[in-house]
């Protein structure tokens, strides 16, 4: 990786370290809450807290690390350095994605761990949880893309609204699919072809969103 891209990624992590520490801390607390019995209210609160953290992080990271570069005019400072539009776009995507993925991975791994070690939770639930979390990751990529491309808070908030509705619709929709609903209640760990197909589509969409962001950024002729 280009050294300038590495510097920019490191810069974003350093600038947002306090914010990230708070989110990672909150995610740790939420994960600890999942250790409670699944019938206990603390467990439910833990699940809600995980989803809340991830949804807030989607918009917070985009506003504080993407849109603020335009609104606070720090982009002029960064673009005056030996960096091209392509370097900047790659670094911004990599930094934001890596920052989002730390709490996201914590949520994914802890939910797998809780499900697989719990007697009262069916192992088949891992597929549904994974698809739901990947859908949140996809939502984040959409919000980040619109934040980077439109350079506006309105664009990111619009994407947030679409993503939020999209997530509810996605969960409602996949639970209507018999193969997924049946697997959710079974103790089978292996994924069925329906689940794998949905996951593949989600990953293709994520790659498509990231690629489109890069392509649009590279074609821009005005950066400030």
């Amino acid at each position, binding site marked *: 990786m280009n050294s300038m891209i590495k510097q920019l990624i490191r810069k974003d992590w350093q*600038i947002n370290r306090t914010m990230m520490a708070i989110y990672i801390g909150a995610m740790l607390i939420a994960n600890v809450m999942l250790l409670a019995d699944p019938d206990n209210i603390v467990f439910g609160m833990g699940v809600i807290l995980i989803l809340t953290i991830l949804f807030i992080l989607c918009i917070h990271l985009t506003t504080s690390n993407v849109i603020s570069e335009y609104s*606070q005019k720090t982009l002029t*400072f960064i673009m005056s350095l030996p960096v091209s539009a392509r370097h900047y776009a790659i670094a911004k995507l990599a930094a934001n994605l890596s920052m989002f993925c730390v709490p996201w991975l914590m949520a994914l791994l802890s939910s797998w761990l809780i499900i697989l070690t719990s007697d009262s939770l069916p192992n088949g639930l891992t597929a549904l949880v994974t698809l739901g979390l990947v859908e949140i990751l996809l939502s984040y990529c959409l919000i980040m893309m619109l934040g980077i491309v439109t350079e506006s808070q309105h664009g990111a908030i619009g994407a947030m609204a679409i993503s939020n509705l999209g997530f509810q619709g996605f969960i409602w929709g996949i639970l209507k699919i018999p193969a997924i609903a049946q697997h959710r209640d079974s103790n089978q760990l292996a994924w069925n072809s329906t689940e794998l197909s949905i996951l593949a589509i989600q990953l293709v969409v994520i790659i498509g969103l990231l690629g489109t962001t890069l392509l649009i950024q590279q074609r821009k002729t005005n950066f400030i």
Partner: protein
Amino acid sequence: MNNHAVELRNVGKDYKYFRLNDISLNLPTGSITGFIGVNGAGKSTTIRILLGLVHQDRGSVQVLGQTMPDQQVLAKREIGYVSEDMRLYPKANLAWHMQFIQSIYPNWDQAYAEQLLKRFDLRAEQKIKGLSHGQRVKATLLLALAHRPKLLVLDEPTTGLDPVARQEVLSALMEVLADEQRTILFSSHNTLDVEQISDQVAFIDQGSIIEATSKEDLLDLWRRLRVRIAPGQTLTELPHIIQQQGNGQLQSLITNRYSPDLHQIYQQAGLEIQAVEHLTLEEIFVASIQARREGKTL
């Protein structure tokens, strides 16, 4: 070796409400060029084009031998840029910014950075959000100077500064001038600042370069002539007159092609030259703009 640090040839850019009109401008290596224009004249657009931050629609841009915007990464390794509307990260302190810039530029001169820190009365541990506007400009200037760039581009750096901060910034720039290989482009609408430090001057108005020459030539060629007209005589078309003011017999003429030969021409036209005065850069700038807007050829 190319003796121009910056070469703009027929560079144009079209916006909805503004057009940069295929401008050409050369900055000789080691020169300090004052780039003067009113707000909205096209100074910042020109500067952003030469840094590769905005891509031109037409024309070619060479900066330190690199073609812009394609080779902007190579060019920007040797460029220091300070802009009035540039901001540093508010939550980070100056020390963090210094470390960040040091990690990017191998030419970073820590001793010089510390010297500038003292000179500008800045504290490295202070967060940027706690700095005044003047301190922010000085902090940005420190970051731009301490990596020893070959080209320093300053877009209205003294705008909004108090007189003391402005003088400190100008003094630091004067010191930098000691390096004859460093080229400086200094944009401002404050002609006093430009007059203090520049050796070349370029005027821009409504997206067109209307004058680009050495400051000495400009100050030498532009003069105000106080003349008396004989009773009953009217002032006919005289050559090289940019502006004419006054009533009755006493008139004030501004020329942009002054030479002692003009005396003879004007005397033959019946004028009695009573005084020849130098103009300030501001007066020349204002007269140039007015003449151009009246459709006169400079």
